């Protein structure tokens, strides 16, 4: 399969955010279950894994830039980025509104998410991860199936 630099970038980014996102949410869930998920520990976990994600993505992009010479984006690349970005933005918007409504409605009873800023933050982070993953999957679909 002949993949462009942008496709390799999307695949690597998707794998990295899925793996590190799973690691983050698994760790956060375990800390929550153990009753030690506080804002400070959550901030430390999120910061550490964000740095790890950035380092992994930089190393990966250096590697694929060496293997396959990156080309300037043309109109097809820009169209794919625009369409996938729009769809990802829609998922992000719907997700954020969903979390906000959940917090508002859940505050009428003792909903744990509505009562905990840490859980609200994690719900929003899950939305960001999901929207980014969706955008990357759509990018790959558009490159392979057509746009």
């Amino acid at each position, binding site marked *: 399969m002949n993949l462009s630099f942008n496709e390799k970038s999307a695949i690597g980014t998707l794998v990295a955010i899925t793996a590190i996102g799973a690691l983050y949410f698994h760790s956060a869930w375990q800390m929550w279950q153990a009753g030690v998920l506080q804002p400070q520990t959550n901030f430390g976990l999120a910061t550490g894994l964000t740095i790890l994600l950035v380092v992994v993505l930089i190393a990966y992009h250096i590697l694929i830039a060496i293997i396959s010479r990156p080309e300037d984006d*043309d*109109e097809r690349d820009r169209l794919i980025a625009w369409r996938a970005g729009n769809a990802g933005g829609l998922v992000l918007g719907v997700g954020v509104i969903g979390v906000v409504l959940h917090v508002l409605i859940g505050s009428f009873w003792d909903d744990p998410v509505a009562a905990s800023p840490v859980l609200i933050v994690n719900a929003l982070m899950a939305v960001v991860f999901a929207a980014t993953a969706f955008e990357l999957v759509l990018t790959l679909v558009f490159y392979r199936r057509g746009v």
Partner: protein
Amino acid sequence: MGNAISNQVRELRDQHGRMTQQALAERVGVSRQTIIAIEQGRYSPSLEVAMKIARAFDAAVEEVFELRV
């Protein structure tokens, strides 16, 4: 994704001394991947790129691209 526009890009490349996809891409100013996508019907180019492709073959746009009804 459906594509309502068919094209003769591959045939015209062959007729023009087996012009490579890379050579056509460089003349048109797009990536080789985009030329491949156009030939396979996975992407309909903009009017500007369609006219540049036609110019590369000294042909009219409608000789290269055709709207499928």
